[in-house]
């Protein structure tokens, strides 16, 4: 099956800033890809390039089989895009605005009212049809933004921080909507909210300082790669290493009754039951066998915090000196 989006080796260079540096993005049918990254990592630039709002300095983008550069109209036809700030006209009503958005995407007049009604129902905007967009709350404006992106039933939906500025209940509703849409469309969403990615995405790509530093499926992420083993007896490392799927072992603590071992292996998640059976049959005195899950947060922090630490430390120092200064003044 060919990919919905095949963007390879994208670069975006602003005057003196290499904002996106060799990022490749792929999206398949039925996939919800979460684009993660700290502020200013280049997420929005990436998405804007995919939607044709920005032209990449280098690289190739193929949308649903057509090259964005050679056949922009055909490629853009299969994209629905919600920018970081919903592209609304406050003086129009929701109906007028959605009609306009649909006509821009070359929706036939005969299908217009049906598709509009669907988008309105999808985004929970029933009964607001004739309200002016400028009078709506931020959350509802965001919904209109999403409705605009899905009205022409595109194969690909690109959402740039869709839940920003929403209250927790609206956030849950939007996530539910994204999950529903993800069944029939391919979705890319960018965010810096980690639980959001864990809740809706089935693949994660982390972008840091313009580079793609991580790209894995959520299922792989959830696989256990490390297990903590607590035994009554002190067993030598070599025999523990013989347990199924174990690739390396380190002994973390050694006491008379509690011996902790950290087992690592790429396929450990499948062999947990076997490991426990063997420990019992060998009579090692199995006390604890706990899989350690790799949380997204750990990965994210370990990948993105690296060289920012120094700067953060400086900031903190400054804060402290400020506080000191203040307290001195107060005294």
């Amino acid at each position, binding site marked *: 099956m060919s990919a919905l989006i095949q963007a390879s080796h994208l670069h975006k260079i602003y005057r003196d800033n290499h904002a996106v540096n060799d990022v490749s993005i792929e999206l398949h049918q039925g996939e919800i890809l979460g684009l993660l990254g700290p502020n200013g990592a280049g997420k929005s630039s990436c998405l804007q390039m995919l939607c044709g709002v920005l032209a990449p300095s280098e690289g190739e983008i193929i949308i649903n089989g057509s090259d964005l550069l050679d056949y922009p109209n055909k490629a853009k036809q299969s994209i629905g895009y919600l920018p970081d700030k919903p*592209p609304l006209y406050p003086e129009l009503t929701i109906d007028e605005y959605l009609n306009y958005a649909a006509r821009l995407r070359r929706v036939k007049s005969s299908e217009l009212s049906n598709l509009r009604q669907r988008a309105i129902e999808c985004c929970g905007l029933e009964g607001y049809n004739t309200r002016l967009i400028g009078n709506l709350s931020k959350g509802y404006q965001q919904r209109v933004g999403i409705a605009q992106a899905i009205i022409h039933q595109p194969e690909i939906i690109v959402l740039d921080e869709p839940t920003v500025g929403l209250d927790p209940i609206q956030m849950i509703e939007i996530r539910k909507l994204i999950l529903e849409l993800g069944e029939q469309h391919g979705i890319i969403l960018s965010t810096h909210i980690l639980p959001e990615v864990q809740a809706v995405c089935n693949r994660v790509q982390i972008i840091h300082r313009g580079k793609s530093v991580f790209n894995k499926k959520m299922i792989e992420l959830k696989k256990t790669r490390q297990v903590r083993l607590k035994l009554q007896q002190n067993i030598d490392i070599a025999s523990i290493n013989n347990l199924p799927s174990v690739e390396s072992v380190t002994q973390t603590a050694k006491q008379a009754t509690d011996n902790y071992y950290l087992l690592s292996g790429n396929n450990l998640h499948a062999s947990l039951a076997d490991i426990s059976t063997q420990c019992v049959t060998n009579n090692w005195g199995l006390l604890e066998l706990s899989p350690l899950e790799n949380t997204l947060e750990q990965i994210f922090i370990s990948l993105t915090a690296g060289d920012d630490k120094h700067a953060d430390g400086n900031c903190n120092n400054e804060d402290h000196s400020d506080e000191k200064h203040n307290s001195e003044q107060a005294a």
Partner: protein
Amino acid sequence: MIFQIALRELRSLFLSPLAWIILGVIQGIMAWKFLGFIDYFFEIQADLIKIKDAPGVTDLVIAPLFDFSKILLLIICPLITMRLLSEERQSGSLKLLLSSPVSMTEIILGKYLGACSFFIIVILIIAIMPLSLLTSTDLDLGKIAAGMLGQLLTIAAFVSLGLYMSSLSDQPVNAAVGTFGLLILFFIINIAGNATTEGNNFFNYISITHHSIQMLRGIVNTADIAYFILFSLGFLLLSIRQLDSQRIQS
């Protein structure tokens, strides 16, 4: 697609009070001016009878009225065109257009037609008053038609310049001031042509006034029409290029 963008532009204009206020103010000023010209005509009517081939109502009322209305058009043009692209860029709604299957040319032409349609309404409203004289006297309809063609070509040029200025700036006010400055320059540059003997032709040739004044006298010159078409096309092409290059650099 061009039509859809133009329609949205026109609708948004009339949903804001700005368009209505402009129409109202123009009508008020023009009515006052119209009355002034009519008064003047009655004053000198007795003397006119003595002259052979004397100028008629069309020359003494309608032509000066159209000529005066150009100054008003010059003042309101930046107010209408400043928003065209810069406001959309500022509010982020330009991204809707850029991510839709429409070309830069279609976006620019749509915006251009939208703003031009508003000014066509303005011209028609201005023309209704003098045309009301038809009920009581004979008018030179050919001359009026030529004058209105001149008005139409003038606003076509004004709007293209305003659109280009709007494509340059994120701030509508900057676009308005820029448009205003350049329009005045093109409007009065023929004064420089009149003042000097050398380069006379050049300054006259690039002046909007020089090319539009003939049509008020009923003379429709191909060179004048070509000037306005080239002027508008030039700034439209510049706007398209500007919009495209912003997508590449930004």
